[in-house]
């Protein structure tokens, strides 16, 4: 009955025009320049973080992690971050319109031959106790520590909230 008394605003959405466009330029060479990274069988694509609102004490980092191995791997921790006091790997869920965020204490599992997206409203790297504001055009270094593949240094690119990593993407999924 509650449904009956609640007006819900349904809004139609348009599908992304970006995801269907295929960019043929830029191939797997020059990984660093393309803002992608690789360690062993783990590939990290386009790590990014949003500019922070004034005075923000926390921020989140996102990326795509692809495991090309036939064994699962685990992103166990993120270290070597100079711009925050603490870094955690978080999971976000939505239940009955309620947002819940929890640290993944055992890390983020990336199963064999799969890809995991860290994205808004899903998994993210949580930067706690920011020592500086995340600002436009800057890159923020971190080390990702995988159980099997080992450690890899990456840079999070600071972007606005309308940023879409797929815009300049060159692989078709």
């Amino acid at each position, binding site marked *: 009955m509650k449904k009956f008394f609640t*007006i819900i*605003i349904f809004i139609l959405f348009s599908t992304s025009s970006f995801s269907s466009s295929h960019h043929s330029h830029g191939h797997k060479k020059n990984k660093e320049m393309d803002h992608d990274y690789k360690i062993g069988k783990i590939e990290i694509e386009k790590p990014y973080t949003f500019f922070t609102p004034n005075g923000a004490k926390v921020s989140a980092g996102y990326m795509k992690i692809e495991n090309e191995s036939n064994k699962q791997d685990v992103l166990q921790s993120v270290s070597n971050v100079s711009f925050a006091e603490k870094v955690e790997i978080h999971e976000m869920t939505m239940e009955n319109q309620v947002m819940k965020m929890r640290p993944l204490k055992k890390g983020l599992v990336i199963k064999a031959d799969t890809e995991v997206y860290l994205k808004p409203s899903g998994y993210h790297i949580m930067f706690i106790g920011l020592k500086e504001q995340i600002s436009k055009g800057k890159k923020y270094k971190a080390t990702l520590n995988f159980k099997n593949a080992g450690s890899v240094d990456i840079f999070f690119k600071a972007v606005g909230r309308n940023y879409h990593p797929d815009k300049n993407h060159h692989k078709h999924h």
Partner: protein
Amino acid sequence: MITKHILLKRILPSILVTTVVLVFIGYNFANKKPNTAQQIQVNFNLEDMNGNQFNQKHLKQKPSLLFFGFTHCPDVCPASLQLLTNLIEDLGTDADKINYYFVTADPERDTAKVLKQYLSSFNQRILGITGKEDELKKLYNALDVYIQKVDLGKGNYTIDHTASFMVINKDAEKVGTMMHEGFSKFIVIDNYGKIQISKDDVIKNLKKLLL
């Protein structure tokens, strides 16, 4: 003959009257507008980020959009404030007809000063609201907003909170919610995190509900 007489003179009229009454009630019930609104009747005493009082009377000045969140929220709160900023800009000249509030779910850390600094990054019409926990709870409860502090150990905590906007008309009645991807399509986030809005529909629906 006597039986027939009684039927005609006594029972039949009462059946007729009853039928007319029932039809009348049914007609009225069917035509009555469904009661979709729940009015905020509770009195609360809060403050805005400029140090001014904020109470139930402020919700009767104009229609309102309220979001409940906290500045130590890395994801859904800044995203929602950015969306609200976009929405206010898209409302154009109608933007002034609505009040916009960011009500803290974390009064311990979100003082008026903290809110003012944080919200300076978004549309200036968005007013931060804070206050005593007990007073805030009155507003949360009146709007069915779920706020729950969760201890993460070592003095750290996070807050589980309703992540949809509350849509309030000028009579302080909750007439709807605007929700995020996962339970509605107000915000659609694809695998790469792009936020998509069909702004025309948002505007159309808001105007219908509020203006």
